[in-house]
C-alpha cells in the first residue's frame, strides 16, 4: 500500500493526470478549480510537459483540440461558466473523434452564478452542451481518491473510444482534502494511427476535421459514432450500490450529494426504514441497468441533486416511470443536509405505505 497523503481533490486530479501520462495542460483560471492549473504550472516544466495559461477558455479548448489531434494525452479544466465557453470546442472535438480529457469543477449557475458547489451542469455534460449529436463520457467522483482514479480512467476511456471524457465534480470535492494513495500502475497507451504526427513521406496524410458538407457523408459519420456510443453504453457504465439488498426506497445521488445521502440512508436505517442508495459513477453512460433492476424491487425513488432536478429525468427514463421519483434538492451553491434527505426519504415512504 502506497503512503497516504492529504490532498485537495483538485490537486489529486492534476497529480493523477500526470501519472496517466498527460504532458499537455491548457487552461484559464476560474474558482473553484484553479488548484489544478497551479499544480500543473509547478509540475509540468519539471517533467518536460507543457503548461500554458491561454488568453481565454475558447483558446485553451482549441489548444486541447490541436494537441489531441496530434495524438497527445491532453487536458483542460474549468468551472461552469468556463465550460460553457469551451462547449464549441467540445463539439468540434467530438465531431473530429479525437480523445480529450476535460474537468468541470462545478459552481452555481446560470450565468456567472456563484462560486459555491453545484451540480447544475448535469444536462450540459450528459446531453451535449455544444451543438450536434454527440456524447462525452461523464465521470462523477465522490471522494478525493476517486478524483484521482477516475482521472486515470478518463484518459484511458478517451483514448480507447477516441472521444472526450469529462470529470464532473463540484466545488466541495475540488476543495476538500482527504487521504489518498497513488498506486504505481502501468500507464496504458494506445496506438493512434490516425494522429497528425507527420507522414515522414511514408504514409498518406491523416486528416482531423469535423466539416462534412455532403449530408450523406455527415450522416454516415454520425451513425458510425453512435455505434461507438452504443458500445460505451453497453460496457462502461459504473455505479455503486449501498444497502440496496432489501431496499424499498432507493435514493439516487452522485458526487457530493451522494456523500450526504449516504449519511441520511444510514440514519433512516436506524429508524427501520428500508432504504438504499444507488450512486451513478458514470453519468453518461447512465447506469440504466441498475436503475431498471431497482425499479423491479423498490417502491419509490428519491433523487438528491444540487440543482433544480436534472438527473431525475434520466431516472424516470431508465425506470420507464414505473415508480414515483421525488426530488430532494438545493441549488445556487447550497447543499442539502442529511436531515433534509432523511425527510425526503420519510415522505417517499409515506407515499407508498
Amino acid at each position, binding site marked *: 500500500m502506497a503512503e*497516504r497523503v492529504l490532498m485537495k481533490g483538485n490537486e489529486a486530479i492534476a497529480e493523477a493526470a500526470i501519472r496517466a501520462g498527460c504532458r499537455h495542460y491548457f487552461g484559464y483560471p476560474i474558482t473553484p478549480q484553479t488548484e489544478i492549473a497551479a499544480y500543473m504550472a509547478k509540475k509540468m516544466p519539471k517533467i518536460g510537459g507543457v503548461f500554458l495559461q491561454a488568453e481565454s477558455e475558447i483558446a485553451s479548448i482549441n489548444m486541447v483540440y490541436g494537441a489531441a489531434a496530434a495524438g497527445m494525452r491532453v487536458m483542460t479544466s474549468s468551472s461552469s461558466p468556463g465550460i460553457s465557453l469551451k462547449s464549441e470546442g467540445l463539439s468540434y472535438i467530438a465531431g473530429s473523434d479525437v480523445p480529450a480529457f476535460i474537468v468541470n469543477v462545478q459552481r452555481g449557475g446560470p450565468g456567472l452564478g456563484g462560486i459555491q458547489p453545484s451540480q447544475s451542469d448535469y444536462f450540459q455534460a450528459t446531453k451535449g452542451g455544444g451543438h450536434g449529436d454527440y456524447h462525452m463520457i461523464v465521470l462523477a467522483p465522490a471522494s478525493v481518491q476517486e478524483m484521482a482514479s477516475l482521472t486515470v480512467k478518463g484518459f484511458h476511456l478517451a483514448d480507447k473510444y477516441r472521444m472526450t471524457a469529462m470529470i464532473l465534480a463540484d466545488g466541495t470535492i475540488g476543495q476538500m482534502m482527504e*487521504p489518498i494513495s497513488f498506486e504505481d500502475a502501468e500507464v496504458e497507451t494506445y496506438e493512434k494511427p490516425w494522429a497528425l504526427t507527420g507522414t515522414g513521406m511514408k504514409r498518406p496524410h491523416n486528416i482531423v476535421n469535423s466539416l462534412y458538407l455532403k449530408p450523406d457523408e455527415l450522416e454516415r459519420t454520425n451513425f458510425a459514432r453512435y455505434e461507438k456510443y452504443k458500445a460505451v453504453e453497453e460496457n462502461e457504465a459504473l455505479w455503486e450500490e449501498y444497502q440496496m439488498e432489501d431496499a424499498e426506497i432507493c435514493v439516487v445521488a452522485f458526487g*457530493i450529494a451522494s*456523500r450526504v445521502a449516504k449519511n441520511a440512508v444510514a440514519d433512516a436505517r436506524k429508524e427501520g426504514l428500508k432504504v438504499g442508495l444507488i450512486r451513478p459513477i458514470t453519468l453518461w453512460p447512465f447506469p440504466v441497468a441498475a436503475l431498471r433492476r431497482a425499479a423491479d424491487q423498490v417502491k419509490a425513488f428519491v433523487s438528491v441533486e444540487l440543482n433544480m432536478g436534472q438527473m431525475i429525468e434520466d431516472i424516470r427514463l431508465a425506470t420507464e416511470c414505473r415508480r414515483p421519483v421525488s426530488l430532494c434538492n438545493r441549488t445556487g451553491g447550497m447543499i442539502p443536509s442529511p*436531515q433534509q434527505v432523511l425527510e425526503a426519504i420519510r415522505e417517499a415512504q409515506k407515499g407508498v405505505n
Partner: protein
Amino acid sequence: MKTTQILIAGFGGQGILFAGKFLAYKGLLEDLQVSWLPSYGPEMRGGTANCNVILSENPVGSPIITDPDVLIVMNLPSLQKYVNTVVPGGQIYVDSALIHEKVERTDVQVYYIPATQMANDAGVSTLANMVMMGHVLKNHPELTFEGTEATVQKLVPPAKAQLVELNMKALQAGRDYEG
C-alpha cells in the same frame, strides 16, 4: 472515539485553515479516516473563514458539518453564528483574548484560552491558532501530544523549517495553559 466533527472558525488570516490541516494531518498520522473542507472564495479575503475537519474510525460520509462535536472560534461573529449548532455534550474553545462574551449554554464544555495574547507573549504573534490547537490536543487524549512535531513537519515546507520550532512553541503553550 468513533467520529469527531470539528468546526474551526474565525477571520481570514488567523490561520483557521492551517489549524484544520494540522488536525487533519494529526488524524492521518494516527491512522484515522479524515476529511478537511475549507470555506473558499470571497470570505477568505479578510472576512470570516471556516473549516470542517472530521476524524473518524470509519470512512467519512459527508464532509460537511452541520452539528459539530467540537467548535473552535477565534472571533465573535463565529461564536454567535455557530454556538447553538454544537451537539449537547460537545466542546467549545474560545479565544478569550478576542472574544469577551461568555457562552450561555450549560450543556457543553467551554474552554476559554486567551490564545492571541499568549501567542504575543510567547513571541509567536501569528500562531494563536496553534495555541488553540495545543489546548484542543490537551483535551483529546486520543490525539496524544506525541507525534505533534512530525505533524507540524508535514505542514511546513522544508524551506521554512525554522517554523517547526515556533509552531511547537505555540502548541506547547496551549497545551500547558491551565484555564
